[in-house]
């Protein structure tokens, strides 16, 4: 039933009746409407603030047949819901998902969702919107259709202001499989970028923000297949199957993009989106490249996703802070012994212009070697200098002897 029909049916009463704009269709845990507890079938009204507790989810079927699901520990305000095509929701914190039916009037932004730092305009689509009120990052991930996304400076804008803003040409169109978010440091919004295919599919399936059925399995985490020194792309082996042109819109550049002129930027594609912080975990230097999807797959060094829920899982023993760094949960003896620095993430757009950030390097090895060298030299003292020359000559002679014809070695390998 559309909102207009609903209103016509209730015209008999002269008093200005406040009409409900939606009904709770699904409830898990505890959710509130203006501090009143919601139950299955409870009605919600324009101006209502809907809040969920930890581990609670509420799904509201709106009068225009849209479905809005509010994730745990989230808060949203139904600021305006007066007609089929001019609706405004304010996400105060947390995560919400909306499945919006294409409206009959074909108005461009039938639903606008805003936060303190961004606004999105929806026609008919399925998307997830996140706002972290600590770091002020808003992010949108589109599952189906298209969402117009733009940075805003205040959450005080009303529907018509935002509708005007979102109709301008500099609004980003976030399509299926893509995300866009405020940059943690600059607040600027990135060019829509594809996220990890695994996370996209898992999140798409997990419409009710279900937690993993079992506690997140302790999966054996192997190191990345990418050895130091060459771009992850070079090690990709293209599968021997025919893959037609992918339906997912391709990224501007898999490696990311940065324009000095208009300061537009996109992170490297294929990273993970953390719903709690709104932060995008860009593929790291040990990422592998997926030629079919034209995306990188981050290495386990920067975490992974729960294949069941799509939730981002930070590297073992670390948590991702809203400030964008990995904080040790509790330093383990192994961490102390190895003194391994926590993984770092890139956020500044200027870093996106450097392609070498996607090449695995030798830093760690050199540092370890250096420490060994320093202690060796200190232990051996001055003998080092006196013996060097003879040994260099010996080593050089040995190297010359070892150099043999290339083709011969390849043939030997084939024989083995």
């Amino acid at each position, binding site marked *: 039933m559309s909102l207009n029909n609903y209103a016509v049916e209730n015209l008999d009463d002269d008093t200005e009746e406040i009409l409900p704009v939606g009904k709770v269709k699904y409830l898990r845990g505890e959710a509130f409407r203006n501090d009143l507890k919601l139950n299955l079938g409870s009605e919600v009204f324009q101006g209502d603030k809907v809040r969920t507790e930890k581990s609670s989810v509420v799904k509201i079927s709106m009068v225009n047949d849209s479905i809005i699901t509010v994730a745990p520990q989230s808060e949203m305000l139904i600021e305006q819901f007066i007609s089929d095509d001019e609706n405004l929701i304010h996400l105060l914190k947390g995560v919400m998902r909306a499945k919006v039916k294409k409206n009959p009037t074909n108005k461009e932004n039938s639903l606008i969702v805003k936060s303190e730092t961004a606004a999105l305009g929806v026609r008919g689509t399925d998307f997830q919107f996140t706002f972290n009120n600590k770091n002020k990052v808003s992010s949108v991930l589109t599952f189906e259709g298209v969402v117009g996304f733009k940075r805003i400076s205040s959450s005080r804008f009303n529907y018509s202001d935002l509708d005007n803003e979102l109709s301008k040409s500099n609004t980003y169109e976030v399509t299926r499989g893509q995300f866009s978010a405020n940059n943690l440091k600059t607040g600027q919004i990135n060019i829509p970028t594809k996220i990890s295919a695994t996370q996209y599919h898992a999140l798409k399936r997990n419409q009710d923000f279900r937690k993993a059925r079992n506690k997140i399995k302790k999966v054996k985490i192997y190191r990345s297949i990418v050895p*130091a*020194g060459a771009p992850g792309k070079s090690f990709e*082996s293209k599968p021997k199957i025919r893959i037609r042109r992918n339906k997912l819109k391709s990224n501007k550049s898999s490696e990311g993009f940065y324009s000095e002129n208009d300061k537009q930027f996109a992170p490297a594609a294929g990273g993970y989106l953390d719903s709690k912080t709104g932060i995008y975990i860009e593929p790291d230097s040990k990422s592998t490249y997926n030629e079919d999807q034209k995306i990188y797959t981050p290495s386990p060094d920067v975490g992974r996703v729960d294949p*069941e829920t799509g939730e981002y899982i930070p590297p073992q023993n670390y948590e991702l802070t809203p400030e964008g760094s990995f904080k040790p949960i509790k330093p383990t003896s192994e961490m102390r012994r190895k003194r391994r620095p926590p993984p770092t993430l890139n956020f500044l757009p200027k870093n996106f212009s450097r392609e070498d950030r996607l090449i695995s390097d030798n830093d760690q090895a050199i540092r370890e070697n250096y420490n060994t*060298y320093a202690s060796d030299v200190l232990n051996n*003292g001055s003998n080092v200098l006196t013996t060097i020359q003879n040994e260099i000559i010996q080593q050089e002679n040995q190297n010359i002897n070892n150099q043999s014809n290339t*083709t011969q070695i390849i043939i030997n390998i*084939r024989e083995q």
Partner: protein
Amino acid sequence: MKKHIYLSVLLLSLKTYAIAPQSISTMFKEGDYEGVLELINSSKSNLTNDQKNYLAGISAFRLYRYDLAVVFFKKIKNKSKYNDIYYLIGQSYYSMEEMQKSGKYFKKSIATNHKPDASLYYLGMIHKELGLFNKAKNYFKQIHDVNFPDINFIQAAHHQTGLLYLDGYLKTKKLSKKVIRKKVLPRLEYAIKSAPNQPLVNIIRRDINFIKSKYLNESIRNPLLLNFSQFFNYNSNVIYQSIEPTENNNSSSGLLNTGFSGTYILETDTKMKFENITNLYLNHQYHLEQKDPNIARYDGLTLGLKNQFMINKPFNKFHFPIWLSIGANHQEMNNTLSGDLTFDNRSYFIAIGNQFHFWLLKPTTELKYEIFENFTGQNDQKNLSINSILPFSFNQYLIFFLIGEIKVSQFVNTPELSNNQISGTVTHMMKFNDHQKFTTSGTLSIIDTKDMREQRGYEILISPQVSYESKINKYLNWGLSYKFEMKLSKDDETFSYEQHVASLSFGVEYE
């Protein structure tokens, strides 16, 4: 029981995928690898077992489940059709750190001509990890000898070969500066030249800088460096004059010195270098304990300027840097006492110097002409000196310096004080780590008093000193030092003395 389990699995699958039932191949194409793995055994499809195992293997591989990927790949019967599985199994074992197995499959991958460049690169890295540096070097050598089309691998192979030298010599404890200069750095520089526009160049450059700064003590600095320092020094200056050996002239003092300095270095293609150093210091000297009432507190400023122009390779074949430097210093100090103790102190210098490369040693020699204009007007000097510094650096933690100097000093207003000096200094510097430094040094000078030779004879100055410096953090440092100075003269009463200076300093420095 089995039926129940089967049914529950089926129901679960149906529930999970009720939204968009898709075929395995569609799921794979969409990148839904988790979906592929869940449906691979429960879905009806037209795929053959080999096709299913192949898709499942790649899906597991892309989800980092390498152990599972290997299981699926090994199930494939028609291995010649899917000849890329050797490479994928090799990669899986590489990730699982099973190096022997990984190497075996990469060799098979080369035999089937699937990604031979990447496979050789993996073999190089595997042997490097196993510590078999010569074998590793041979695999990298094959990559650049065969000249594969992917230039990334050729460049990476040169890069890794350079690092192999570093690792290899480190492991055998034979690393020297010569090895770094003759083997490691040239190979890394060649790697840059082999593909100067590839992104790996940035990483190689960073490695070169890192190696230069850590192993050759050649730090790469920003062209413009601004420095602020605030430094407090307390010293207990005890002088025993020979004329009154029982009464010392104790003048302990505190010195607060605030300084700004700017260094600008312009280096062109490492052949020429221009360096400008400007210093401005604000001084406040306070005597805490003084026997002589004429010793005053001073406040003032010091301004220094030095310009140095250096040619690193004046001759094409030899690394034989020469430089010309000119400079000026000006100091103005006002005392707190009345009288004529306010002083100006100026000096100017011009110097020409060079540096030889002799085996692993780099002695430097400098010829310098200085003019001093002192505050009293009585001690104006013109000095011509030649000095030579010979550093012996076993590593960055243990450094010896030998310094020799011959100086001819001419006193303008009091020519009878003019003298010739020859002096030698031995300095030993030991760094415990990057934060702590302990230095000992000793200087012996012989002074020919020329016109006063009859009265003073040849004088001897002996000056040993020890110091310890420690950095608390990047900005804060403190230090202790002790210096003893003794001058022996024929005219013992007037010109001989002993001096002890112990000092404690605390400083803040910001770059």
